[in-house]
Every structure is written in C-alpha cells, then in structure tokens.
C-alpha cells in the first residue's frame, strides 16, 4: 500500500512582494510514509507547509488531496481535511493550562455546539502522557521551551489527522524526548498516517524517515528513498555544492594556553544552581551540557546578571568583575545569546538593521547621539554577509525572514559589539547545515582571536564537534567534565544523568 499517493502538489508558486519563496514546486506524499524535507534556511519549506495548512494562499499551482483538487482556504479547513501542523515557532496560549491548550485545537474542528470538556481533557491527558510526564494542569508559560514544544506536538496528535506536518519539531527537544517522538511517529505511520518531517539534522532524517525531498531556492530538487542515498548526497543537493568538513578543526595541542579568560568561583544563586566553579582558557571553546532544566542557562544568565542575584566570584582576564546588571555586562564585552529567539532574541516587527544595532547604538551614532542610518545599514550589511544572511532588504522587518535567518540576525546582534566573551544558548537552533558549519567556523575564528566562547547545546554531536572541552551540569551543579577523546555522547549522558558526583573523565 506504500504507493498510494495521498497528497500531490504540482507547480505551486508563492511570492512575498519581490521575494519568490516557492517557484513551481512539485511534491508528492504517500500514505503511511514519513517524508523528510531538507533545504537551506529560506528554501521555502515552511512556506509550503503554510500553504498546505491554509495559512497562506498560493499564487498559482494545484493541491490534489486523495485525487481531488482542493482549495485550502484556512487552517480550520485544513483541520477538517485531516491535516495537522506543528509549527516551527511555538504558538500556544501562555496563560492557560497545558491540557486546555492541547484540546483547544479540538474544540475548533468539532462541528457540534456542545463540548464534552471532561472527555476532551481526558483524551488530552492520555495523549500527553505518552510524550512526557509534565503535569497537564500547569500553565504553559511556566514551562521551558522544550516542554512547550512537546505541548505543541501533543496538540497536533489529538486531532485525528491523516497528514501530520512537523516543522523542525526537535530543534528544541532533548535527545531522549526526540527519541520518544520518533517512536510515536513510526507508530502513526504504521497506522497509515502520512507524516511530513522538516529538519536540518541529517541523522534524524536518515534514522527515521522513508523518503527525503530536497528544496533549494523555492524549487524541488530531488526526492529519493532514504536507503538509496547518504547524508552527504542530501547536503550537496541542498546547497548545490560539496560540503566536506562539517565541523571546524579543533584547537591544536600546542596552542593551548593556561591563561584564563573567564574564571568562575563558587557561583550560586541559592535556588537553581550551587557552587559552580570553572575556568575558560584562552583560545578554547567550552561547552556546557546537561538535561533541560539542569540549570545550564541559569548559570550563564547569572554570570551576565541577566536574571536573579548571584553570589560568588567572576574574574575576567584575571580581574574580578563586579557587574551590577546586564548593561554593565555588555559594557564589559560579555554578551548572551538567548535560547528563545522569538520571545527575547529579536524584535520581530522592527527592521533587520535596527535589530542588529540594538546592543550598542552608540556604534552607529555620531557624537551627539544621532543614529546615522548609513552606518547602521553598513553594519548590518557587513555582519549579514559574514553570516550569509538571506533577506530581501535590510530595512524589512525580521518577521519576514525564515526561522534560520532570524537566528542569524540574533547572532549578528551579538557580534556587532565585538564581544570579549560570548555565551551562546543553542546557537544553531533551526540553522541549516551549511550556515551551521559557517557559524561554527566563525566561533572557532573568534576563539582563535582570543574571544571567550561558551556554548550551551542540547545537540550533543554539535557540542562534541565544536567544543574543546565540555562541562556537564546536573541539578544545578557541575557533575563533571570531558575533553579530547573522552568527549562522547555516552560519557556526557552518563554525567548528565547518573548520581555519582565528581566522576570527571579526563
């Protein structure tokens, strides 16, 4: 039955003003398959999904569902047709409970006037239980990004859909959560549900999907069975050239220095982390690993004075730092890239250039505090080029960019101040393979030039690939560190979850 085509899209185009997001795309989805879509940032993946879900209307082209041509005019219509969509950006109601959020979608598709809320809630909880052990009665806004993402997924699972679209669902998930999701996906596929799975992670595509389609610049390049190709074929099709080295070269042994850029002693905020001590040596990239909720972000936010009050000592280049607030921190060249891009990373409705200059406006202003828009554009242009930002015009709002390009804007914003020490929380979330290795290379160059780099990531291969040393945090304490050949996923997971402390593997 594998060959039944459920959804067929032919010659579909969509433009946003001058930007041609989709140009005559063809796409075919079979019954019961998990179909991966790969493509660079801005290739048009999310746009096509938004068209299938009725959020956007195509300029031209056809959508054929079960052999009949359909016009999907709204997300409600899409739901009625059996299409479920987990968005790239989280869109939940923060002030209501998890359970209510989950069955919200359901109240929407029901045609009856009266709702059996008890039954709905029970169903919601049942679905949710398979995914996670979060209490369904807590408010969504109190959850971490990863847990919010799980709620978003659960929401789509409650709809009895025939086609399930997942747009980068694992970008915010931990490894274990992602594995649970894959198991559920496989079960759904076996029940005959077709799944469209968008991801920038080749491993996920190759471990879990049946077929893969590659998009480039709004066009369909190729569709193949996953078992017939390898990751490098897909990557090459995506970028249109050959990418050989995914991760930059590590720091050479002879380049190692004992000079500490950052030294942290007995840092604690009395609530979420305790007694944290570590040092960052010149030229190295330090990773911080740990389960979600272990306190990784809190530690670095504490160092930059972004959140809560901390006790303990922080030394920058050997001199004690007494930072009063985050403004102080920026003035000292210490900056933080937030893990929540949409929530606190970018100004969605402001121009790209104004986003990039936000950290230190003085740089684009003259002596009298007047912003020179020429200087501002030049700054944005230079950093945009460096990060390979894909955009129409630098005065367009950030909301017009694809997810990965928004992340590049957030990164450009930090680089704009020539920082001395950068904390990056999930720096490549949603960024495509090419740009990702580009970002990694930039980080390595910065480290080489003496800028301190600390990377937090839930993606272990990324930590292992870019970092010279990885600290592992468990329940608010540093439970150990790994370096060199000992940097393996097993060792890190072991330190992140097992109880015997101080099991440092050198």
């Amino acid at each position: 039955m594998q060959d039944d085509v459920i959804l067929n899209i032919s010659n579909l185009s969509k433009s946003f003003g001058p930007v041609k997001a989709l140009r005559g795309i063809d796409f075919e989805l079979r019954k019961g398959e998990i179909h991966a879509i790969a493509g660079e940032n801005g290739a048009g993946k999310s746009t096509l999904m938004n068209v299938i879900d009725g959020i956007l209307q195509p300029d031209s082209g056809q959508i054929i569902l079960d052999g009949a041509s359909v016009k999907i005019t709204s997300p409600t219509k899409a739901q009625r047709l059996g299409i479920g969509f987990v968005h790239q950006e989280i869109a939940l109601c923060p002030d209501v409970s998890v359970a209510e959020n989950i069955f919200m979608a359901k109240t929407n598709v029901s045609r009856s006037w009266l709702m059996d809320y008890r039954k709905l809630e029970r169903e919601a909880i049942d679905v949710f239980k398979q995914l996670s052990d979060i209490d369904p009665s807590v408010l969504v806004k109190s959850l971490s990004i990863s847990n919010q993402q799980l709620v978003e997924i659960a929401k789509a699972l409650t709809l009895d859909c025939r086609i399930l679209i997942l747009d980068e669902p694992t970008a915010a998930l931990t490894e274990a959560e992602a594995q649970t999701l894959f198991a559920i996906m496989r079960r759904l596929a076996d029940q005959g549900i077709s799944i469209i799975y968008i991801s920038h992670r080749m491993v996920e595509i190759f471990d879990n999907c049946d077929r893969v389609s590659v998009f480039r610049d709004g066009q369909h390049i190729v569709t193949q069975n996953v078992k017939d190709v390898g990751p490098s074929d897909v990557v090459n099709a995506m970028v249109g050239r050959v990418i050989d080295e995914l991760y930059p070269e590590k720091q050479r042994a002879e380049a190692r220095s004992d000079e500490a850029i950052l030294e942290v002693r007995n840092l604690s905020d009395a609530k979420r982390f305790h007694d944290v001590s570590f040092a960052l040596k010149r030229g190295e990239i330090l990773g911080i690993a740990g389960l979600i909720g272990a306190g990784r972000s809190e530690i670095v936010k504490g160092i930059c004075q972004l959140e809560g009050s901390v006790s303990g000592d922080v030394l920058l280049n050997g001199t004690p730092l007494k930072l009063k607030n985050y403004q102080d921190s920026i003035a000292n060249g210490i900056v933080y890239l937030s893990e929540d891009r949409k929530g606190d990373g970018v100004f969605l409705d402001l121009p790209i250039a104004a986003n990039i200059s936000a950290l230190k406006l003085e740089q684009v202003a003259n002596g009298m505090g007047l912003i020179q828009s020429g200087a501002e554009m030049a700054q944005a242009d230079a950093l945009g080029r460096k990060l390979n930002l894909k955009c129409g015009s630098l005065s367009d709002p950030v909301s017009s960019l694809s997810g990965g390009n928004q992340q590049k804007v957030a990164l450009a914003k930090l680089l704009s101040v020539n920082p001395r020490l950068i904390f990056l929380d999930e720096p490549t979330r949603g960024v495509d393979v090419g740009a990702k290795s580009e970002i990694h290379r930039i980080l390595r160059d910065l480290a080489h030039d003496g800028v301190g780099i600390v990377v937090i990531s839930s993606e272990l291969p990324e930590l292992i690939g870019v970092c010279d040393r990885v600290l592992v945090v468990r329940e608010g304490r540093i439970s150990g560190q790994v370096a060199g050949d000992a940097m393996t996923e097993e060792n890190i997971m072991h330190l992140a979850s097992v109880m015997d402390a101080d099991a440092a593997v050198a």
Partner: protein
Amino acid sequence: MDSTANLAGEGTVSAEAAPFYKRLLRMRETGLIVIILGLFFIMSFASPYFLTWANMRAMSMAFAVDGILVVGMTILLISGGIDLSVGSVTALAMVIAGWLFLSGIDPWVASGISIALCTGIGAFMGFFVTRIGLHHFIVSLAVMVIARGACLLFTGGRPLGLYTLPPEFKFIGQGTIGPIPIVIVIFLVFVIAFDFMLRRTTMFRKVFYTGSNEKAAAYSGIRTKKVIFLTTTLCSTLCGVAGIIYMARFGSAQPTFGLGLELTIIAAAVIGGASLNGGSGSILGAILGVILLSLVSSSLALLDVSVYWQDIIRGSILLAAVTIDHYLNKRRA
C-alpha cells in the same frame, strides 16, 4: 511595515534603497496627506467660508495644542503604554496654574509649578506601572478620575476667570509673529524637535525596542523600566505644557476642559500609524491624524451638521481610516 518607514524611512542610504517615489508611496503618511488634501478640496467648494484666513487660523489653533498632546501620546504608545488621563491632567494644569495665579503668584512661576506637578503625576503613574507592575490602562484610568476630581475641588466646579493675566503671558496663547500665531510656532517647534529625535536619536530608538519586545530589549541591555517610566512622565509633562497654553489662550481655567479629549488624542495617534501593541508610530503621522480629525470637526460645523450626527460621523471616520490603513499595510507587508 509601518515601523520600517519610521526607523529607516528618512535618509536611508543603503545599496538597495528604492527609488524616491516608491519610498514615498510606501510611507504611511502619504495616504493621510492625500485624504486630507481631498477633504480640503471638497470643503473649499462646499463652504464659501472654509478657505478664509479666519477659518484657517481657527482650525490650526484648534489642532496646534492638541498636537503637543499627541506627541506625548505617540511616544508613550510606541513604548507600549497608553494614557487615558491626558484630558484631565491638561485641565488640572490649567486649574492649578490659574488658582496659584489668583492667590498672588507670578503667572510664569505658577505655570512652572503646574508643569512640574504634571511631571509628578506622570512619575506617579510610571511608578505604579514599572514598580508595582500594574497596567497603564488601569493606572491612567484611575488618575483620569482623580485629576478631574482635583480640578473640581480647586475651582468649586466653576471656571476661574483670569482677567488680570499680564498681556505678555496671554501673548503665548493669543499673540502672533507677523501673521502667524505663537501657538502655531510653539507647536511646530515641538513637532519638528520630537519627530527628529524619534527618528534619529539613540535615546528614542530605545523606545521602539522596548515597545516592540520588552523582553528582547532587556536582553539587549536596555533599561526597559526606565524607558517606560520616562515616556509615561513625558506624556504628562506635555499635558502640563498644553494646559498652560490653553490657559493663556482662553484667559480662564476651566475644570471641565478636555472631557473626552484622551480619545481624540489616542485616535489621532492610531490613525497616524501608532500601534496599540507598541513598537511603531510616528510623530508626523500622528500630527496628520490630529489635522484630519480637526478638519473633519470644523467641516461638519461649517456644514451645519447637527452635533449628534457629528459624533456619529467622527466615529465612523475613525473606523474607516484605521481599516483602510490596516489593509494598505497588509498589502505592503
């Protein structure tokens, strides 16, 4: 998007800068100017009295002082706040200055004290919003009622006649330089100064950041609470300034002045492109909004439309203007 025009519309030197006429078309202000000119054109045929010097002068006097209020409101809206107390606080500024003057204080000193008091009221509201964490809407609603009550308390509910105001003081409200009323000059100075500052200074750019996404602004090292506190205070201070000018113009202090004025001011700012969600707006647009509303009012009066109908028509125009603008912007985005 609108904010694009506000932040990068003027003097943008970028490689991909659109041709001048295209940029002009993209600017929200252009649409408003066209509507205003159209109305102007129609009215000059509809009423022989419309295009007279006296009418032009009366009309510009009417929007000039409100224009100062709308400057403060627009900046506050951009930062994500709102102020319902502008009408009452303007009246209070008048009443306090008038009362102090009648108790024998020099009118200039009295005005200074009164404006300072308004600044204090703004700081008071700013405190409740930024420190206690209440919403602008509810805090300013309460202050609106309190300030109105204070006006009545000081005057016993009757207008204060200030016949003895010295002529050099009345001059700010009634005098002219050549053919141009002083009020218009003051108005232009405020508008040009604030429009320039809002477009160009780093200080006011932070207002946009704060209103667009307060958390992201905090994560960019901006003291968002301070920004909101200051925009709230500025709005009330400008109410003080407007109140004093009104007093000099009328030669009296009226405790019931400005009932419902807050709605006109907010409407003008929104017609001119300010978003109630914060993060966008422009002074030029807001001023055009004031001009449009005042043009409509005086046209309706000239055409002898009944007062009851005037309100209905004004409300409908507000709805129409905002709707058209919404669609134009969507098209552009």
